[in-house]
C-alpha cells in the first residue's frame, strides 16, 4: 500500500479523496492534516449560513466520521511544521509521517489590507466558520453596524447576509462599479441599485484609510474624511494562495505552487491542487476547476491518464433576489461588437459580446434564464451569424416559438453544462431522470447536480419539468420528507381541521406514500398528534428517537448519561449523597452541567432502570435532559441571599419548573430567572427569560445560545409572580400548538413575528384559554417517566443470551 499524505482538508482534497477511494480502494494509506479542527465543509455555502438560511450541519460534506469510515487517518487541528523532501516525511506538531506521495492542498488565506488598525479585534475576513461565527455574533446585537471592505463576489454575499440579519451595512469598493471583474458597468449599476433597495449602503471609489477604536474596531475612516462607525469590519478584498510551507521546502513557486497538467510540482512525488496552485500562470478561486483538478490528480496517482485544462467559467451571485450572470470576456475592443437589450421597468439588462461571428462574452442582470445557453455558445465557439438577429432573445425565439419559459431549457443540447461546480451536463441529468431519479433529491444523489453551491437548482428543476412533462410538478414548498407531499405547516393544520387523532388517520387521510412514515416524519407527526390531542392520542415511544425512548442520552460508546432534575438548580445534602452513591455503584463519570444540575455518564442500558429506581427512592425524578421538552429553569439566589436581589428568583424558578416539567414541545425549551438586571442566571439568552426588577418582572422570549447566539426580545412586563406564570405558560402553549417540529422558539418567533405573539397574548381571554389547554395536556404528561420505566425494566435487557449454548 502506498503512503499518501495530504496537507489540507478542503473542498479540493475532499473531492480528490473521493475519486481515489472510488478508483483504487485500498491502494493508499492516507493521512490527512488539517489546521482547522474539523473536516471538510462546503465553503461556498458559508453565505447562506451567515444569512441564517442554512445551518453549518447542512453544509458539511466530509466530517471526521466520514474520513474514519473510509480509512483515512485524520490529524485535524494539527499544523504541519515542515516537509522534509530528502527524507520524504511530513513533520506535524505531534510527530512525523513518512510518505511515498504527498499532496499540498493548503488553499488560500484572505488578503488583509495592511492599513492602520487592520489587526484590531473586530476585523474579520470571510473565509471560514470562525469568521462566519464572529459575524453572526456581531449581528446579534440590536442596531449593530458592519463595514464590508470589498465589493466583489464574497464581500457582497457577506453584506447581503449581514443585512438579512438586521445589521446596518456599508460596502466600500475601490473600483467604479461593483464586481468589476465579472460585470460591466451597466450590470454593476443595476446590482448597486438592488442592494441599496435592500438597505445596503454602497460607497464606490472608496479609499479606506484606517480602522480605529479603543481596543477593538469601532470606526473606519476614509481618505476623503468620511467616518463610518461600526461594530465589525469584514475584509473581503481577495485571497492569497497559502504557499509558505511549499516555499520553505524548496518547491518551485511563482505566485503559488507551480504544477503541470498532471498536478505535479517540481518534485515528482509531490503534487498540489486547489487554491494553492498556479497552472500556466493562472490562479484558482472558483470551485469548478478545483473539482477538475481533483479528478486529474486522482487519475495521475492511480496510473491513469488525464490532463488538466483551463476552461471557461461563468459566475452567479448567491444573493436571493439578485439575479446576475456573466461568462466569457466582455471587455470592449477592436473587432468586437455588442448586442444590448434593456428593459428598465423590469430592471433587466443583457449584453452579448461578439467577435468574428462567435459569441465571446455575456453579461445579464435581472433575467438570467438563458445564461447557460449563451455559456454553451461561448464554450463551443459556434458560428452565430445565422441566428444573430434574434440571438439576444435566447433559444426560445430560434424556431419562431413563443416565449415559453421552459423552451430555453428544452433547446439546450445534451452537452450543455447545467451544474458548473460538479461539471454535470444536461445529458447526464436526462439520463438519470430516465433511470428513475425523478425529483431533485434523487438527482442530487445520483449526479451531484446542484449539490454544491445550489444556484443551478432552478435549472435542474426545469430540466426535470421538460423531461417528465406533466409527470413533474414544480415544488412550491418543501414537504416534510419523501413520504408525503405536505409541509409541516400543512400537516399541523390538517391534523387540527380534519380532527386526525391517530398516526393511521394521518397516513391515510393525508396520502402518505409509505406504510408508516420514516425517521424524519414519524417523530414530527407523533409530536403534532400528542400536542393537539393530549387526551385522545397516546404518545408512541416507537416513533421517538433513542434518547426520548430510553429517557437518557446515548453516548458515542453506546452507554447513556442520566440526569436527575434539580428544581431551579437547588439541591441538598441528601440528594447529593444519593447521587454520589449512584455514581459509585454504577461506575459513572460525574459532570456538572450548564443547566445547574449533575450528569452521570457511562451508564449501560441494562443498568438504567436500576439507577432510576435508586434515584427515585431518594426523591429525585427525570431531568428530561434528553427531551424535546422542558429542560431546566436556571436561577440565581435572588432576594433570599443576594444583597442586590429584588425578588425571589429561585422560588419563582422552582414554581415555573414544577408547572412546566414533563411537557413535550417542538424542540427543547430552557428558561432562566434572574433576581436583578445583573442577570446572573443569564436569562436573556434563554427561550423564556425572566428578569426581576423592583417594580416586578420583565418577561422576554426567543433567545438562543447555541450554534446561534441571540438575545431575548421583550414580551411583557408584569407586576406579580402569578402573571409571570400565566404569560410564560401561554407563550409556551402557543409555541407547542403552532411551531414546526425541531424549530426552537427563536426560529418560530422569527417566522410568525414577535408582534403577532404580543398581540395575541395581550388578550387576557386568549392567555387563559392557552393556560387551560396546557393544563389539560399536563394532566397526562406532568409525571416522572423513570418511575414508569422501572416497572417495565425487562425491556432494557437482552431477549436471550446464546453465547453459552453456542460455546458447547
Amino acid at each position, binding site marked *: 500500500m502506498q503512503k499518501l499524505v495530504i496537507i489540507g482538508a478542503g473542498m479540493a482534497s475532499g473531492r480528490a479523496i473521493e475519486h481515489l477511494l472510488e478508483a483504487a480502494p485500498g491502494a493508499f494509506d492516507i493521512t490527512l492534516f488539517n489546521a482547522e479542527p474539523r473536516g471538510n465543509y462546503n465553503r461556498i455555502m458559508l453565505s447562506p449560513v451567515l444569512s441564517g438560511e442554512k445551518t453549518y450541519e447542512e453544509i458539511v460534506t466530509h466530517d471526521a*466520521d466520514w474520513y*474514519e*469510515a473510509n480509512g483515512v487517518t485524520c490529524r485535524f487541528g494539527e499544523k504541519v511544521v515542515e516537509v522534509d523532501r530528502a527524507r520524504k516525511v511530513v513533520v506535524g506538531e505531534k510527530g512525523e509521517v513518512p510518505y511515498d506521495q504527498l499532496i499540498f492542498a493548503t488553499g488560500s488565506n484572505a488578503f488583509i489590507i495592511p492599513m492602520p488598525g487592520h489587526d484590531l479585534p473586530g476585523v474579520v475576513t470571510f473565509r471560514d466558520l470562525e469568521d462566519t461565527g464572529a459575524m453572526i455574533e456581531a449581528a446579534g446585537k440590536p442596531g449593530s453596524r458592519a463595514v464590508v471592505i470589498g465589493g466583489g463576489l464574497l464581500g457582497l454575499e457577506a453584506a447581503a447576509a449581514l443585512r438579512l440579519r438586521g445589521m446596518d451595512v456599508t460596502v466600500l469598493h475601490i473600483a467604479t462599479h461593483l464586481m468589476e471583474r465579472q460585470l460591466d458597468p451597466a450590470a454593476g449599476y443595476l446590482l448597486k441599485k438592488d442592494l441599496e433597495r435592500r438597505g445596503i449602503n454602497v460607497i464606490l471609489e472608496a479609499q479606506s484609510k484606517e480602522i480605529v477604536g479603543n481596543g477593538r474596531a469601532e470606526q473606519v475612516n476614509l481618505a476623503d474624511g468620511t467616518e463610518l462607525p461600526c461594530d465589525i469590519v469584514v475584509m473581503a478584498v481577495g485571497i492569497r494562495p497559502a504557499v509558505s510551507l511549499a516555499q520553505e521546502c524548496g518547491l518551485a513557486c511563482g505566485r503559488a505552487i507551480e504544477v503541470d497538467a498532471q498536478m505535479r510540482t517540481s518534485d515528482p512525488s509531490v503534487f498540489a491542487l486547489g487554491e494553492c496552485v498556479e497552472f500556466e500562470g493562472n490562479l484558482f478561486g472558483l470551485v469548478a476547476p478545483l473539482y477538475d483538478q481533483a479528478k486529474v490528480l486522482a487519475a495521475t496517482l492511480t496510473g491513469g491518464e488525464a490532463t488538466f485544462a483551463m476552461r471557461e467559467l461563468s459566475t452567479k451571485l448567491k444573493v436571493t433576489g439578485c439575479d446576475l450572470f456573466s461568462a466569457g470576456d466582455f471587455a470592449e475592443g477592436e473587432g468586437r461588437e455588442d448586442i444590448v437589450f434593456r428593459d428598465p421597468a423590469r430592471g433587466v439588462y443583457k449584453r452579448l459580446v461578439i467577435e468574428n461571428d462567435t459569441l465571446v462574452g455575456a453579461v445579464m442582470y435581472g433575467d438570467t434564464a438563458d445564461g447557460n445557453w449563451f455559456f454553451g455558445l461561448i464554450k463551443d465557439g459556434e458560428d452565430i451569424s445565422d441566428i444573430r438577429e434574434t440571438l439576444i432573445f435566447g433559444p426560445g425565439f430560434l424556431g419562431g416559438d413563443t416565449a415559453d419559459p421552459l423552451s430555453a431549457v428544452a433547446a439546450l443540447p445534451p452537452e450543455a453544462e447545467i451544474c458548473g461546480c460538479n461539471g454535470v451536463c444536461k445529458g447526464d441529468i436526462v439520463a438519470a431522470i430516465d433511470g428513475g431519479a425523478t425529483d431533485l433529491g434523487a438527482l442530487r*444523489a445520483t449526479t451531484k447536480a446542484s449539490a454544491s453551491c445550489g444556484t443551478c437548482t432552478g435549472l435542474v428543476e426545469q430540466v426535470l419539468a421538460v423531461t417528465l412533462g406533466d409527470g413533474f410538478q414544480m415544488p412550491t414548498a418543501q414537504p416534510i420528507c419523501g413520504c408525503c407531499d405536505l409541509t409541516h405547516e400543512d400537516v399541523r393544520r390538517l391534523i387540527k381541521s380534519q380532527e386526525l387523532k391517530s398516526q393511521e388517520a394521518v397516513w391515510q387521510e393525508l396520502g402518505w406514500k*409509505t*406504510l*408508516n*412514515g*420514516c*425517521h424524519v416524519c*414519524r*417523530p414530527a407527526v407523533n409530536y403534532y398528534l400528542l400536542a393537539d390531542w393530549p387526551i385522545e392520542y397516546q404518545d408512541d*415511544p*416507537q*416513533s*421517538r*428517537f*433513542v434518547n426520548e*425512548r*430510553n429517557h437518557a442520552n*446515548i453516548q458515542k460508546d*453506546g452507554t447513556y448519561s442520566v440526569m436527575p432534575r434539580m428544581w431551579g438548580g437547588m439541591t441538598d445534602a441528601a440528594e447529593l449523597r444519593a447521587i454520589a452513591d449512584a455514581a459509585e455503584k454504577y461506575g459513572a463519570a460525574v459532570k456538572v452541567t450548564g443547566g445547574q444540575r449533575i450528569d452521570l455518564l457511562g451508564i449501560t442500558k441494562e443498568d438504567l432502570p436500576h439507577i432510576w429506581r435508586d434515584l427515585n427512592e431518594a426523591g429525585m425524578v427525570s431531568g428530561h435532559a434528553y427531551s424535546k421538552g422542558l429542560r431546566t429553569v436556571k436561577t440565581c439566589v435572588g432576594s433570599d441571599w443576594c444583597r442586590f436581589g429584588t425578588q425571589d428568583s429561585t422560588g419563582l424558578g422552582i414554581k415555573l419548573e414544577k408547572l412546566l416539567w414533563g411537557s413535550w414541545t417542538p424542540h427543547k425549551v430552557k428558561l432562566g430567572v434572574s433576581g436583578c438586571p445583573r442577570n446572573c442566571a443569564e436569562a436573556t439568552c434563554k427561550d423564556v427569560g425572566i428578569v426581576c426588577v423592583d417594580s416586578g418582572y420583565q418577561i422576554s422570549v426567543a433567545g438562543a445560545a447555541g450554534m446561534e447566539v441571540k438575545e431575548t426580545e421583550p414580551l411583557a412586563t408584569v407586576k406579580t409572580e402569578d402573571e409571570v406564570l400565566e404569560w410564560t405558560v401561554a407563550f409556551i402553549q402557543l409555541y407547542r400548538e403552532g411551531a414546526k417540529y425541531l424549530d426552537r422558539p427563536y426560529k418560530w418567533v422569527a417566522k410568525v413575528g414577535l408582534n403577532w405573539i404580543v398581540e395575541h397574548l395581550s388578550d387576557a381571554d386568549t392567555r387563559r384559554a392557552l393556560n387551560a389547554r396546557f393544563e389539560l395536556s399536563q394532566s397526562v404528561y406532568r409525571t416522572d417517566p423513570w418511575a414508569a420505566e422501572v416497572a417495565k425494566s425487562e*425491556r432494557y435487557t*437482552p*431477549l*436471550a*443470551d*446464546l*453465547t453459552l*449454548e*453456542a*460455546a458447547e
Partner: protein
Amino acid sequence: MMNWIDIGTIDDIPERGARLVKTPVGCVAVFRTSGDEVFAASNSCPHKGGPLSEGIVHGNKVTCPLHNWVFSLETGEAQGADEGRIATYPIRIEDGRLLLDASALAAKDAA
C-alpha cells in the same frame, strides 16, 4: 443444517421496535414490524457501529439512531446514497414463538 433455537415470543418485542440477542458473533437485533413480521440482523451499523436495535423501525426498514443510515431488514442493504450492508439471519415464528437459526450464527464465526 439448521439449528432453530427458541428465543422468546413475538410479544416480547414492541411493535415497530427491536430487542437484542447476545450471540457468539456479537449482538443480533430482532425486529418486529407493524405487520408483525420479524427479522434478525446485526445490531451494529457498518458506518460507526450505532446500535440498530435502538433505531426507528418504519415499513421493513430501520434507521440507525446515530447518523440516520437506513437499512432494509429483508436484504440488509443500506438504502439511498449510503453504501454498506448488515448481516441478516434466518428467523421464523412458530405458534407465536421466535426461532432463531443458531447454525447461521456459528457458521459466520467459523468463516
